[in-house]
């Protein structure tokens, strides 16, 4: 074989080898790209899945937030009501009644007279806010206890001064003392221990 032929044969062999290697490399690369594409597709699916889950979680969180806000709101309202309830202190006014003929007026008449006097002095709003009530009455002594809110205590006491008639008889209500508890008020009335427990 001539040297030229030898060179050519070797060259073509090398070229064929290179072509085979390149073809193999290309196939490997193609496989790699295909696997990467597959991986990417899988990742994209995962991302979509996560995005969906996040959306659902966010929706759930919004609902939860609304529920918490409502709960807080009602808690604050409850707290405010509790504060108001705590502020709503009461006072007990011990009084006795002096009538024209020394008779004892009925408790309903006494309460009515006090309410009328309070309305005349300070109006219906004061009657409503003072929550005046005759809580105890001793007919034998013509004395009793009126409950009122502590804020309107002065109005109720002043209204007692305006009472000049109970029922259809001339009468006067004399306030004796104002206390913070009904127990003390009953003590002021001079009730026995047994009566105090009633």
């Amino acid at each position, binding site marked *: 074989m001539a040297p030229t032929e030898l060179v050519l044969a070797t060259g073509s062999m090398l070229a064929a080898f290179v072509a085979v290697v390149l073809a193999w490399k290309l196939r490997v690369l193609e496989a790699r790209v295909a696997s990467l594409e597959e991986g990417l597709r899988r990742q994209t699916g995962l991302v979509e899945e996560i995005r969906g889950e996040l959306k659902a979680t966010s929706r759930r969180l919004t609902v939860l937030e609304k529920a918490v806000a409502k709960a807080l709101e009602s808690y604050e309202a409850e707290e405010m009501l509790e504060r108001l309830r705590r502020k709503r202190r009461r006072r007990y006014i011990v009084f006795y009644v*002096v009538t024209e003929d020394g008779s004892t007026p009925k408790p309903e008449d006494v309460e009515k007279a006090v309410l009328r006097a309070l309305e005349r002095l300070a109006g219906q709003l004061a009657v409503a806010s003072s929550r005046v009530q005759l809580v105890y009455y001793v007919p034998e002594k013509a004395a009793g206890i009126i409950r009122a809110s502590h804020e309107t205590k002065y109005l109720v*006491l002043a209204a*007692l001064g305006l009472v000049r008639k109970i029922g259809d008889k*001339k009468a006067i209500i004399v*306030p004796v003392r104002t206390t913070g508890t009904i127990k003390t008020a009953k003590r002021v009335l001079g009730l026995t221990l047994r009566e105090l427990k009633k």
Partner: protein
Amino acid sequence: MKACDLQLSPRSIEEAEAIAELAAAMGLRVVAFESEELEKARAYVEAAKRHGLEAYTRRTIEARSWVEAAKEVARVAARGFDIVAVRPRTAEAARLAARDPRVAIVQLPPGMARYMDRSQALMLREGGTVAEVRLLPLLRPGDPRTALRGIMVIVRRAAAYGAAFTVSSGARTRWELWSPASTRALLESFGVPPQLALLSLTSYCRQALHKALARG
């Protein structure tokens, strides 16, 4: 603390007895009886003393013109009434009565609320005289708003300008008496500070009595 009511106007000795009895039960300790006749007033005072009250005679002069009223004040003071009070009907009478050494009390009716101003308060302070409001108009039948407003304005202004003031019932019968607790509560519901409300029933009355009795 002795609560006072410096104007009681009973029409008979029996009524004075009844008033004194109820006043003592209500917790009043010092009272003054109003009468045109000194003997009657003294009889009322004796009746009140029997119930353990410190009592004085009093005469209130209605003053339109101070020239006329001053003569009447001098006449009444000379007759021996313990307390001489003036119920002015004009601004001039209110101002001059406040500075008169013989006048212990200037009684302002609800209709004269506007006269209780800074200069009136100054004159009351200068003369040591006490302004007085009467609660009797509140007990009249009908709408009490006008009287209530007048009394409220006088009391508030007196408290704000630092003038001594007192509240009396002007009771003609025992059914027109006011208990000290109710009077004090009424003042406090007008917005007068509690200490001043108490002073108006105790120390300010004492101030009027001191001035009246110092006259000799």
